[in-house]
Each structure stands twice: as structure tokens, then as C-alpha cells.
């Protein structure tokens, strides 16, 4: 019958879609550890969960995590994440699923400090140790360490860099934040305003979020430039914000005229730095976050060493120092020469 064949073709399409989705899971869950270890405690399976997949930053975290796993031997990294940082509930579910799967440990970055606190507790109650990277929870249990950038200190320093680049005299500056309400965003915004307070000659005339979308960052920056033709400097607080801000400044024909201090180090940000569109970048060490998270987790699991929090540090990258060995190790991290020494 006609109806039957129609239903059947519909089912076939559904099946194809399901297959694609299944394919997605296989690709994202990359088993990178080997099976050749010989350690006393046997193979370990550690879940590493970013805030969201989709940005350079988290790919570098993953590289660090997998590097630590490889060096430790016989450790498998289960990498999985939600697709938008705003999907807090999705991340809660993901963490719970990993607990259900009985992974040996969970290393993750909380999309929301308060909302993920119960998820961490749930894991600990189930006997799965947790280490936080990049963003912790509130409250955060004593036995859970945080390997993260001190965002506040980095942002204070960004304000100092901006003041330094602009020099004497009154200057209008703007702030492109990314996700109002998120912990990291709040810390950077507070750090930057705290830093600005030290420089009475800088006036904050505009503050708008990009929602981590380049298009939106570009749009709000264009509008801020329109409203403030004398704008002298911009601090853009994450990768999409920086890219959008730089494009807006360029479109307005003000490249180099408006000083941009950015955060993170995506390839196009580095290119902008070399071109002079961006004055300086505050670069975190996501590789070290992933590395420390997994390394300390493995030591904890195999030797019972308690895990303790550590600042993973920031590097201020400018056109002058970008080609130095030290900066290159941070920018192009590889497992052959991991930027983790300290």
C-alpha cells in the first residue's frame, strides 16, 4: 500500500539519521589511551568534560588531558561535552551518566558553579573522585581540587596592559563580556573593573555580552563604536568576543587606532596580534588544565595522593614576545614538550 511504503521510507530516513547521530557519539568519545600498561592498579577510565565543545580552548584542554593519560600509561580519556555553555542541565545529566557508567574519575569544568555542586557531590557519594578544571563549583568540597586560571588576576592585569598601551590622558574604553551569569565571566568582568579603578583616566563607556558568538560580538562592538566615536580601547574577554571585536574595529576602519586587549589564543587571534589589530592577548594554559587534571587524578587513583588546587597561570602575549620559545610552548602545546613545567 502507498501508506506503507511512505511509512517505510520515513523510517529509513530516521534510521539514517540515527546512524549519523550514533556516528557522532563514536567520534566524540575518543579512546586515546593504549592498552599496553603494566601498572599495578590496572587500566583507568577518566571522563573529561569541558564546558562545551566547539572552541579551540577546549580542544587544547583535551590535548593536555590526553597527553597526561599517555604519559601515565593505561589510562583512557572519555571526552564528551554539551554543545552550548548555557546548557547547564545537559552537563548535569552528562556528569550523572558518567557516574552511572562507573568511570574511575571525573575531570570537568562547571558551566554553572551552583548548579553543578550537587552533581559533584553525587559523584563523590558514589565513590567517583572529581577534579575541577577551569571553573569550579560553589560550594566545592575540600577533596575536590581546582586547576584553573586565576581569572580575576589575569583581568586586573588586562586593565593594566590597556592603561599602559593608551598612556596618559583621558580615554574611553569598552568591555565585551561573554556569558553574563557564568562564573568565569563574572571573575573577568570584576577583575577588569577592579583594574580599571586603579587608572582614573580610563572611562568604561560600554559593556555588552557576545554570548560567545562571533556574530553577536561583532554586532555589539559595531554599535559601541557608533555610540562612542572616540573609543580608544576594548577589552574582549574570550575568543569569540575578541574575534568579533577585531572585525568590527577593522570594518570601521580603525584597526590599530583602537587598542584591543584580548583573551585566549585562537589562530585568528594570533593572526590579529601579528597584524597589529590586537595589542595583547591574555593567554591561559588550557593544556596545563587538562594535563594537571588527569595527571593528579591518576596519581590519586593509583597512589592515593591527595589532590590539591593549583593556578595554571596566564601568559601575556604581545607582538614582541610571541616568537619566544616560552610563549610558543604555551601557544602550540604538544605532548613532546608540554608547557607544564613550573
Amino acid at each position, binding site marked *: 500500500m502507498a501508506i506503507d511504503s*511512505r*511509512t517505510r*521510507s*520515513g*523510517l529509513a*530516513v*530516521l534510521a539514517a*539519521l540515527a546512524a*549519523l*547521530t550514533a*556516528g*557522532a557519539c563514536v*567520534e*566524540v568519545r575518543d579512546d586515546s589511551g593504549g592498552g599496553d600498561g603494566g601498572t599495578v592498579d590496572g587500566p583507568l577510565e577518566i571522563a573529561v568534560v569541558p564546558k*562545551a*565543545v*566547539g*572552541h*579551540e580552548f*577546549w*580542544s587544547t584542554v583535551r590535548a593536555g588531558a590526553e597527553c597526561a593519560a599517555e604519559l601515565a600509561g593505561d589510562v583512557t580519556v572519555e571526552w564528551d561535552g554539551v*554543545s*552550548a555553555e*548555557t546548557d547547564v542541565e545537559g552537563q548535569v545529566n552528562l556528569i550523572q551518566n558518567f557516574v552511572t557508567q562507573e568511570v574511575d574519575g571525573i575531570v570537568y569544568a562547571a558551566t554553572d558553579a551552583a548548579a553543578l555542586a550537587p552533581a559533584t557531590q553525587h559523584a563523590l557519594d558514589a565513590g567517583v573522585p572529581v577534579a575541577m578544571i577551569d571553573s569550579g563549583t560553589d560550594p566545592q568540597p575540600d577533596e575536590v581540587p581546582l586547576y584553573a586560571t586565576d581569572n580575576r588576576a589575569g583581568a586586573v592585569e588586562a586593565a593594566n596592559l590597556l592603561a599602559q598601551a593608551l598612556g596618559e590622558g583621558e580615554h574611553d574604553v569598552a568591555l565585551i563580556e561573554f556569558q*553574563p551569569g557564568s562564573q568565569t565571566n563574572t571573575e573577568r568582568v570584576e577583575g577588569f573593573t577592579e583594574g580599571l579603578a586603579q587608572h582614573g583616566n580610563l572611562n568604561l*563607556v*560600554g*559593556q*555588552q*555580552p557576545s554570548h*560567545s*558568538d*562571533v*556574530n553577536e560580538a*561583532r*554586532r*555589539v562592538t*559595531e*554599535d*559601541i563604536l*557608533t*555610540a562612542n*566615536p572616540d573609543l580608544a580601547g576594548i577589552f574582549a574577554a574570550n575568543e*569569540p568576543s575578541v*574575534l*568579533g571585536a577585531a*572585525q568590527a574595529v577593522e*570594518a*570601521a576602519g580603525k584597526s590599530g587606532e583602537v587598542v584591543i586587549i584580548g583573551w585566549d589564543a*585562537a*589562530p*585568528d587571534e594570533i*593572526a590579529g596580534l601579528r597584524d597589529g589589530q590586537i595589542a595583547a592577548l591574555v593567554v591561559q594554559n588550557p593544556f596545563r588544565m587538562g594535563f594537571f587534571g588527569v595527571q593528579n587524578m591518576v596519581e590519586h587513583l593509583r597512589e592515593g595522593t591527595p589532590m590539591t588546587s593549583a593556578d595554571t597561570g596566564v601568559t601575556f602575549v604581545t607582538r614582541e614576545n610571541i616568537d619566544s620559545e616560552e610563549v610558543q610552548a604555551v601557544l602550540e602545546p604538544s605532548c613532546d614538550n608540554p608547557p607544564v613545567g613550573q
Partner: protein
Amino acid sequence: MPVSRSPRPDPSATAATAVESVTGARDRFRESLREHLSSAVSEFTAATALIVLFVALSLASPHFLTADNLFNIGSQTAVIAIIAVAQTMIIITKGIDLSVGAVAALAGVVGAIVVRDLGFTVWEATAVAVGVGASAGLVNGLLIAGARLPPFIATLGMMSAGRGLVFIITGAVGVYSLPESFQLLGNGEIAGVPFAVAVTAAVALGSAFLLSQTRFGQYVYAMGSNMEAARRSGIAVRRHLTAVYVLAGALVGLGGMVAASRVNSGQPNYGIGLELDVIAAAVIGGASLFGGQGRIAGTLIGAFLIAVVRNGSVLLDISIHYQQVIVGLIIWAAVYFDQFRRRRLEARG
């Protein structure tokens, strides 16, 4: 018309018509005026709001009514307008497309990748992006018209599957290192007009023409108004409904490419929440989620209204949170006035 085969005039009918034409001339005139107004009232309400907003912002900020700012608003509205046009066609058929954000991102990253890795020109890449969008639309259309899934469900699936594909294809990182020429579509100009605005205008005019002047357009409204009536009138509803989704998908692909071109990169996270913006634009412009109603002109005004609210808020440095509240109020007001108008028309003698 076959009726001419029985050309015998009917005296009673003719007499009645004559009587009516004397006594009812004024009523009829009023009636006709009301009809013309009624079809334009949604646009009229939204356009009035837009004008009021323009005046208010011109007074509030010296930078609002400047060539540069208008140029910016135009470019900023382009993508949402193109995709809102697509959404409008679907809404007229009593459907909804939740997958526009994901499909736009998919088209954008594929367009960026073929330029970066295969050396396609920006025009070839645009064709590819449009093809990607149309394919996604075809899947939506087959699921809805063929497998009879509700549009909400079919496109919800596409929203998820499409976003997943984006991450698979890109490995979840942005597609960068594109040649300067990639920006042509989103950042170029012709004769002082942003290229993106010209593309939007062409899309809007073409779609408005299609909907109002062609048989296909007539069927779009007929299907949304009463699918069973359309079917019993001999319209091939499955084919036409699928075609609407394919066409809309193609436009979404184009919009995704313009967005990617504008930021010179393929962004895997692009367009999350975009579906809500474009549905809002269509609804503010008078499209009815119950189908059968909606016009491109109204949708464009809706898209501009949202864009101008956002632009004005940044010019005045109003927090994002208030912007969201304002857009919400506009949606309520627009739909309320629209229903108020309809109730009044229905209540008429």
C-alpha cells in the same frame, strides 16, 4: 469559465444585485476599505512601532540616525531577515522550523571548509551552502509531508542532528584561516550598499513575489489555511509542502553562509537560539502560527524592529537583560494587537 455554457440571465438574481448595488454601495466601500486595511494592519502596527522607535532613538542618541549606523543595522539585520523569510513561508503552511540555527551553522561551516580545504571560490561555496540548506530542508520536508511527522518534531530532530553534524565535520572547532575574499558576501558593498543588504532585498522581493503572485504561493497559503481543502482541490500537497521546506532550507543555507562570511570563519556554535529570533520576527510581522497568514513585508519589519531594539540598546548602553525583556514585550504587544484586530473584524455585523 465553464459557467458561460449556461448564459441565461437570472432575472431575480440580477434584480437583487441591482437593489443591493444601490443600497449597499456605501457599505461595500467601507467593507473594501476594511479588508485592505485588515491585511495590512499587522504590518501597520509593527511599522508604527518601528517608526516610533526610530524617532525615539534619534532623539536619545546623536549617533543613531547616521549613515554609518544605518549601514550597520542593515548588515546586522541581513542574516536574521533572510532566515526569517524562510521561517515565514513555513509558518504560513502551519508549520514551524526549529532547525534553522543548526542548519545555518552547518551551511556556514561547510561553506568555509570547501573554501579553506578545497580552494572553492566564495560563490561556489555559497552554492554549496545553499545546497546543504536545501538538503536539510528536503529531509525536513520528507519527514513532514511524507512520513507525516509533526513539523515541530521533525525539525526538532533536525536541530539536534544538524548541530551534531556540524561538530562532527568541524571536530568542534571553528573553521579559520580563510582568504580575504571569503568576506565578500557578508562584508562587501555594491554601490555603497552592503552586499548582505542587497542579498536580503533580493531574497525578500523574490519571496514576496512568489507568495503573492504565483500559483505556488497561492498553494502555500491554501495548505496552511486548510490542508484537507487543498488536497480535495486537487493540489499535490505532499510535493508542494516538501518544496516549501526545500526552498526555506536553501534560504537558511544562504543566510548561514552570509553569517559565516561576515565573521570570516565557520562557527560551529553559530545560531543557537536563532530559531526563536526569526519566529519572533515573523510573528511580530503578522504571521499566524495557526497557518494561512503572514507576509514577507511584515516579517522584514519584525526583523528590523528586533535589530533596532538591539542596536539602540547598545548605543544607549542598556544591559542585555533589558533588551531581552523589551523583545518579549514587543512580541506580546504585536500578537495582542493582531488578535484584537481579528476579533474586531469577526465581531463586525
